[in-house]
């Protein structure tokens, strides 16, 4: 206990003893009541021990007061902290357990929204080509014969048209059979350099069966500038394939599209057999990914572009077919039937990584 008129030395010793006792007693308080008793004993306004020190402080010699005052404040703060710490501990312990007696029970779920699997594929393709400076162009699905065929160097009444069984609306208005009419529209609208990606829905006169749909998605790319060559085509599409499918061998083989020349189809090594040949790749070791080629000069000329000065390349692919092989979808109609149980799975696919 503190004498009535303590010396500075007695005052400081007393403070020290007080803080030692408090820091032992407070953590040991086992109930709220005991803690409150301690609070009153140490910090109480009337009978608290600190109150006695505060009174004694005023009686110290004037020159001793600043030092003693600082010590007093420090000790008061320490004791207050000890009290509050213990108070928090006790209240935490006393709070009812937040109904987590069995944490194995399931969380409260929200509906998981999802983009369509075909959208996922399109967006992934867009993302890769945006790294390479491509922007997005679109166009109408109801088109004229000229935009869909004529401007793209399709010879009239030629067997090349057999590859595009067409749904017509009236006269020379049709439902576009590919996204390529947007090539012509873009070439007529903007001067080169052009680097665009064209996603969209296209139509074919096909029965709706496990491997065909009368309406489906396509995405194509167009790159036109001075000095764009077959090497740029190979380089860009190889980069794309490596980013989209992982680093696997690719190959280009001759093909034919009226609107490109030279034309090339791109294959990527079969992911199922690793190139040794299996049923999926029809024993070839390769799976076809896209069609491509150098834009035919006649296409540039149809859009008023100087075909001597400008060259370029284009490619097109079917994101629906890619979604089917990528996600193991057995029937193309699942993509279009809109069964919510199918679409919900896309939420999981969106965060899944490509298997190598």
């Amino acid at each position, binding site marked *: 206990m503190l004498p009535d008129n303590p010396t500075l030395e007695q005052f400081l010793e007393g403070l020290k003893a007080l803080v030692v006792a408090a820091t032992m007693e407070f953590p040991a308080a086992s109930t709220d009541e005991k803690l409150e008793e301690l609070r009153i004993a140490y910090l109480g306004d009337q009978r608290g021990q600190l109150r006695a020190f505060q009174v004694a402080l005023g009686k110290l010699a004037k020159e001793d007061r600043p030092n003693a005052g600082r010590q007093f404040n420090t000790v008061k703060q320490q004791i207050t902290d000890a009290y509050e710490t213990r108070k928090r501990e006790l209240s935490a312990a006393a709070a009812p357990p937040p109904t987590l007696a069995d944490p194995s*029970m399931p969380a*409260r*779920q*929200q*509906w*998981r*929204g*999802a*983009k*369509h699997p075909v959208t996922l594929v399109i967006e992934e393709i867009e993302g890769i080509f945006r790294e390479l*400076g491509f922007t*997005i*162009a*679109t*166009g109408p*699905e*109801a088109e*004229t014969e000229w935009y869909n065929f004529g401007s793209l160097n399709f010879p009239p*009444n*030629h067997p090349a048209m057999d590859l595009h069984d067409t749904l*017509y609306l009236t006269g*020379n208005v049709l*439902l576009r059979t590919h996204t390529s009419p947007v090539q012509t529209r873009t*070439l007529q*609208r*903007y*001067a080169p350099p*052009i680097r*665009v990606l064209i*996603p969209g*829905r296209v139509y074919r*006169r*096909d029965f709706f069966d496990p491997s065909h*749909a009368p309406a489906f*998605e396509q995405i194509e790319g167009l790159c036109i*500038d001075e*000095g764009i*060559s*077959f*090497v*740029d085509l*190979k380089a860009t599409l*190889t*980069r794309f394939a490596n980013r989209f499918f992982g680093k696997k061998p690719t190959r*280009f*083989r*001759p093909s*034919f599209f009226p609107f490109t020349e*030279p034309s090339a*189809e791109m294959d990527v090594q079969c992911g199922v057999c690793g190139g040794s040949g299996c049923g999926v790749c029809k024993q*070839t070791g390769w799976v076809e990914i896209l069609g491509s080629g150098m834009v035919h000069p006649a296409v540039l000329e149809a859009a*008023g572009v100087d075909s001597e000065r400008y060259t370029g390349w284009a490619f097109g692919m079917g994101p629906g077919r890619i979604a089917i092989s990528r996600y193991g979808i057995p029937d193309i109609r699942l*993509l*279009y*039937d*809109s*069964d*919510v*149980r199918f*679409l919900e799975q896309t939420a999981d696919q969106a965060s899944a990584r490509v298997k190598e």
Partner: protein
Amino acid sequence: MNVSYDWLRAFVGFQLTPAKLRDLITSRVATVDELEPLNKALTSLVVARVVEAGPHPDSDHLWVTKVDAGTGVLLDVVCGAPNVKAGALYPFAPVGTTMPNGLKIEKRRIRGQTSNGMLCSPREIGLGDDHEGILELSTDVKPGTPFLKVMPAGDTRIVIDVMPNRPDLLSHLGVAREIAAAVDSPLTLPELEGAGAAVPAAQRVRSSGRTGPVEVRVDEEGLCRRYMAVVIRGVRVGPSPEWLVNRLEAIDSRSINNVVDATNYVLHELGQPTHAFDLAKLGGSTVIVRRSRAGERITTLDGADRALADTMTVIADAKRPQAIAGVMGGRDSEVSEATTDLLLEVASFDPPRTRATRRALGLSTDASYRFERGVDPALAPAALERTARVIIAVAGGRVDDVPIDIYSGEPLVAPMTLRASRVARVLGESISADEAASLLRSVGFDARVESPDMVRVMTPTWRSDILREIDLIEEVARLRGYDSFPDEIRPFRAGNVPDDPQWLTARRVRNALAGAGLLETRPMPFVAGADRGYVQVANPLAANEAYLRRDILDTLARRAEYNLARMQADVRIFELGSVFTPTDGPMPREELHVGALIMGRRQPPHFSDPKSDEFEKAMTFDAWDAKALAETIARESFAGMSIEVEDGGEGDLWRISANGAHVGVVRPVALDAPVWAKKAFGVELSLGVFDSTDVAPAGAHAYRTAEYPPVVVGQFRPLPTQPSSSFEMSLAVPAGVRASQIEQAVRQVSGDMLESLQLVDEYAGKNIEPGYRSLAWRLTFRHPERTITAKEIEGRRTNVLRHLEKTLNVRARTT
């Protein structure tokens, strides 16, 4: 198209396995879709060693042997071959094998001795006619090794996807030509035994002439680019020899008789379709190539009676059509066993007319397939000679007279120029004129280097697809091999085209709706509806695809029903897509719409949910959720515009407008639904109209400078530093007064300090006068620089209530 590996090898002496040949054709010529081994019957054959061989006790020409076929036990096999000897290896067919001739190998007893399989002769496995003894193998593989590993036997069918620009590849000659160039070997026509008969050179005439007894005439030059014919007398029609049957079977073509097979053989060998008429059946010894006449009919070789149109070309005798030109012959003049004299036709019919005829008749044949792609008129003389010789080789007979050749002569072909500088520009690699010329020469071009930049090129007659310089550049790239070009990314310039604003909007809306827990769909955009006001598809394949939809909610409603039929009650789907409405012009109006449909539970059930009807009701999607979706879509789509959500009408709950223009609706969606289904609500907004007008006339452009959309940004408000003050007021609202009117009135008299006005409750029933409802609002006030006094708040409450009473006859609730 099917080709035979063996047949190709008769043209070029290449040393490639079928798989290697496939890779070569695919990488340089056209894609090989499939390799089909034609020796499937031989796959179960193994190499076996005869360990012991002794005479059969009850026969003087049979042997009893013990055979090691790698199975671990020695098999007893009875064998009739005189050359069997112990220690040697032979092809062995175990029990269960079906031999190429259809014989099924079974466990048998032969004169009292068991036989467990068969040791095979060359003929039994299709390796020749030798049936004198079994095939002794000079190899030292282990017994049990598959026989085909030791000795490739049997042909392979190669299925090639020939693109429409390359009719020259529709024959063994065409494919072999490319292989010969690739492996740098000579190309020779296969030698056929007995096919050396003398065929005199044809007599060329302009439009008509005679060969033997037959008068031949082409009515119009446009019908037929070249028409050759020759009479062969004294043939004996019968079965074809085995080699011819095998050739045709290898390409999946059926053997008919020796004469028809000979014409088919040449079709697949050279790519020239030909037709043999029974000369005796041609009336008046006349053959005319002419347009068919209205009302004419013909029974074709397939037995079908067909009506002919005047757009078709026929080969007629003096009276009537005997063949549909380039498509199929007629039954009346078909070659039969009674036929002794033939008229052989070798022609080049007009491609577009052949195509139109084929489409009109729905009749595609090997001949029409080639004619509509173009058969080289220059091929006809060689094909005539070859066909006549093959016919004489397999059916006997002799050429009667000088063949007739109706042909106005080779078209003038101008030489083309190929610039090495252009090759480099298009292909990105420097290729010398010498290299380019030598690549072109390898497949039959006449290419001469005139300067380091210039090659003069004459195109071979069979390459009708080569029209301009770029076609030659493709040849160079293809023959050099696409793999020979590097694939390094080279510097490029940024493009000139800004992102399509409609696409940007669609992306924002899609992200928002998927983020709100909805599932994106991509259903078929057709409807069966036959009302006017729909855009009709002229040639639909199915009745439910006859029209294009005019709104997305209709499509989504059908998709919701599809889900209900699969017991899926919680449907929350959306779609972004085109809708179509008719216009006065030829093009429909096409708009990009977004539609969303919600029904069922707002979130999945959880075990902690209260089990009450009231809670279930509160957890079910209602009109307010649909209104929120509409507001979300509008916010994402019409940034910076003034969006109004107003009362609907005509079945709509709300109508949405942006800057005063109607853009969409919220409405209940009627479904064909089971009783347990909840109500469905739909939202549909238009995000813009597609510009489907021509950008510029053909051959022209209408360049725009890039148009960047206006920049729309909002400003942050500073966070408050002063406390707020609020009160609630419950109002008795008479029927006909709307919440929005009350809010408007409150704002009129509340002044700047009103921070928020929030509707907190709606109630009707007990304690509320009939015809009234109770609405409660919380009003929150704040001054930016000081605390608001109780007196100020009270003053505002008084003002607000007085104003409401005066303007709307709304009073504070007293009960």
